[in-house]
C-alpha cells in the first residue's frame, strides 16, 4: 500500500507524463487561446487584436468582447432580418467541407477495410512488405503527389489519353476541377490513415472466433458482419476520425484539384486571413470549425467510456 502511494508520487513518473501535457499546452492550448482572443475583436473599430480584453480607460471596468464575427458567420447582414439566418457563404463552406469530409471518409472506409483485412490475413512473413507499400507514398512530398494527380486527371492527361487510345471514349472526359478530382485526391491522400488503424485492429482478431461463428451456423458473409465488423469497431472509429477531422479543414487538395464552385472552409479561412486581412473573422471561422468537430467527438468518447464502465 505504502509502496504504491510512493510510486504514484515518484517524480520521474510525473515528469514523463508532464512532457506530453507541456507539448499540448504550448502547441495546442496556448495558440487556441490566442485564436479565441483574436476572434472576439472587431476589425472595423480599428482596435489592436492583441489589446487587453479588459478596458478601464473610462474608469469603469468593461469587457470588450465583440461577437460580430460569430454573428456574421450565421447571418448574412445584407439579407433582410430573419431570412438572412443560416444563409451565408461561410455556412455554405462548412456544409461543403463536412460533405466532402464525410464522403472521403466513407470512400476511404470502403476501400481501406478490404485492404486492411487482406493485409491482416496475409502470411506474417509478407505483412511487413505489404505495410511498407501502404506507407510508401509518404516518402514523396505530399504536394508533389497531389500535383501528380493533375497530370493524370487533366483533359489531356494520362487517364484520358489512355481511355482515348483504348477507344473507350471519343473525347476527353472532364475530371480535373470537379467533384471527381476532389474525391480522388482526398481519398488518395487520406487512405493510409484509414488502413493503418484498421490493420492494427484486424490483425489482433482471433480467427477462431470466425470458426466459432461458422460452427454455429453463420455463413462467411454473416460471420463477417456479426463478428469481424463489430470487433473492429474501434479501428473503424479511429480510422474515420483520422480521415474525417483533417478532411474538414483540408486546404491543399481542394486548392489544387477542386472546382471553383465548391469552396471549402479551409479556403475561406485562407481568404479571410490573407486576402481580406480580416484576422478576427478568420479566427472565429476556425473556432467554429473546431467546435464543429469536437462536439461529436466528445459525445462519442463519453458514450464509449460509459459503455466500458458498465
Amino acid at each position, binding site marked *: 500500500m505504502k509502496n504504491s502511494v510512493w510510486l504514484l508520487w515518484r517524480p520521474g513518473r510525473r515528469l514523463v507524463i508532464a512532457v506530453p501535457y507541456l507539448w499540448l499546452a504550448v502547441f495546442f492550448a496556448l495558440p487556441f487561446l490566442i485564436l479565441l482572443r483574436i476572434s472576439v475583436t472587431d476589425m472595423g473599430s480599428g482596435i489592436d487584436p492583441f489589446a487587453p480584453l479588459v478596458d478601464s480607460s473610462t474608469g469603469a471596468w468593461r469587457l470588450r468582447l465583440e461577437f460580430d464575427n460569430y454573428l456574421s458567420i450565421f447571418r448574412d447582414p445584407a439579407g433582410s432580418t430573419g431570412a438572412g439566418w443560416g444563409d451565408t457563404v461561410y455556412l455554405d463552406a462548412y456544409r461543403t467541407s463536412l460533405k466532402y469530409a464525410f464522403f472521403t471518409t466513407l470512400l476511404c472506409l470502403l476501400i481501406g477495410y478490404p485492404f486492411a483485412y487482406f493485409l491482416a490475413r496475409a502470411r506474417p512473413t509478407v505483412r511487413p512488405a505489404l505495410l511498407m507499400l501502404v506507407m510508401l507514398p509518404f516518402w514523396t512530398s505530399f504536394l508533389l503527389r497531389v500535383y501528380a494527380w493533375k497530370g493524370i486527371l487533366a483533359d489531356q492527361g494520362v487517364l484520358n489519353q489512355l481511355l482515348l487510345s483504348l477507344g473507350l471514349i471519343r473525347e476527353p472526359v472532364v475530371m480535373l476541377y470537379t467533384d471527381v478530382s476532389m474525391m480522388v485526391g482526398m481519398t488518395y491522400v487520406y487512405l493510409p490513415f484509414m488502413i493503418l488503424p484498421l490493420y492494427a485492429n484486424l490483425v489482433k482478431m*482471433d480467427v*477462431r*472466433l470466425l*470458426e*466459432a*461463428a*461458422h*460452427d*454455429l*451456423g*453463420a*455463413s462467411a458473409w*454473416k460471420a463477417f458482419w*456479426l*463478428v469481424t465488423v*463489430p*470487433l473492429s*469497431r474501434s479501428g473503424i472509429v479511429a480510422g474515420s476520425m483520422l480521415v474525417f477531422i483533417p478532411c474538414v479543414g483540408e486546404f491543399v487538395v481542394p486548392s489544387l484539384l477542386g472546382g471553383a464552385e465548391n469552396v471549402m472552409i479551409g479556403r475561406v479561412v485562407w481568404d479571410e486571413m490573407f486576402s481580406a486581412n480580416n484576422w478576427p473573422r478568420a479566427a472565429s471561422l476556425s473556432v467554429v470549425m473546431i467546435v464543429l468537430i469536437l462536439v461529436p467527438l466528445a459525445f462519442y468518447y463519453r458514450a464509449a467510456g460509459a459503455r466500458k464502465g458498465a
Partner: protein
Amino acid sequence: MNLALSPGDSYLRTERLVKRFYDVVAVDEVSLSIAKGEIFALLGSSGCGKSTLLRMLAGFEIPSSGAVVLDGVDIAALPPYERPINMMFQSYALFPHLTVWDNIAFGLKRQGMPKAQMQARVGEMLDLVQLAPLAKRKPHQLSGGQQQRVALARSLAKKPRLLLLDEPMAALDRKLRERTQFELVNIVEAVGVTCVMVTHDQEEAMTMATRIAVMNQGRVLQVGTPRQVYERPQSRFVADFIGNVNLFDGKITRSDAGRCEVTTSFGYFCADGAGMAIGSEVAVAVRPEKLHIAKEQPPVSQNLFWGTVSEIAYFGSYNTYIVEMPGGKTMKITEFDAVRHDGSPIGRGDKVFFWCDPSAPVVLSQ
C-alpha cells in the same frame, strides 16, 4: 452403456479418412466407429493429427480422401455452418462483444428460431450450466471456469447431433480441472449427446471418455476403453504413452497353454499371451505399480528379480524406486503406503527383490 460395438450401432463413422497438407500426411487412413451417446477421446501428443481429425469432423478442413458418415449421411463435403455438429473450442472462442446470453443465442438466431422459443432455450441452457445470474455479463467479466460453461452451453444450444470438444480443460488450472472434468461429463451425459474430444492429457482422456483412440503420426494405434488401453496396450508406443511403464526387449522362448516366456537380458518373464511364435522379437511392458518390492526373498518362483536401489522418490501417497539390475538395466517400481510410517524401510543402495504376477507383464509384438 453398451461398449461392445456391433457395426449396426455405429453413429459416427470415419472411413479411411486422409488429410494431406502439401506433402505432409496429417491424418493417415483413419477409420473410426463411434456409438450414439459415447464420449470418445482422441489422445495423442501435439502434431499427431488429432486436431486435424477433429477439424475435419467440424468441417474446417476438407478431407483429402475418405468419408465422414454421421447417422448414415456422408457429411464430408458440407461446410461447417450446414453440419448438425457444434464444437467447444480450445480456450472457448467466445464472442467478446456479446453478452453470455447473446453468445448462447448466436447459433439459435442463425437458424431463425422464433423469439419466444429462443428465450426458453437459452434459459434452459443457462440453467443447465448454472449461469443464469450472469446472463448479462460479457465474457471478459467471467472466470475461466465460467467461460468454459458458457462455451459448453453455446455448443449445446442448437441440440447438435455431435458435440466436439477441443482440449476442453487446457485453459483451466489443475485444481479446477479435476472438478470440471466430472461436471462436464455429467452435463454431456444428461443431454445425451454423442461427443468426440481431443486431448493431449491422458488423465483427462481416462477420466472423461468411454473410449479412447490413441494417435501417433496421423494414425490411430489403438482404440479401447480406458482400462483396455491402459492394461492391454497393443504397441510399445501406446504402452509408453499412457502412464508409466518399464519396457524391455526380449525374445519368446516358450509358448504353451495361454502362457509364454520372454527372455530378456536380465532374466525371463512369464506372461499371459497365446499364439506367440517361438523366437520372435518382442517387448515386455510392466507397469511400475504391478511390481512388489521387498528386502527379503518372497516365496514366489515366477517373475522374481533382484537388484540394488539407486533412487527413491517420495510422492506422499506413494514411493517410487529405481532399481538397478545386474547387467545395468533399471526397473521402476511404485509402492503405495497403506500405513503411516516415518522413513521407508528400504534405503538407497539396499539389495531388494521384486516380483509380479504373470498377468502383469504385457507382451508386445510391435
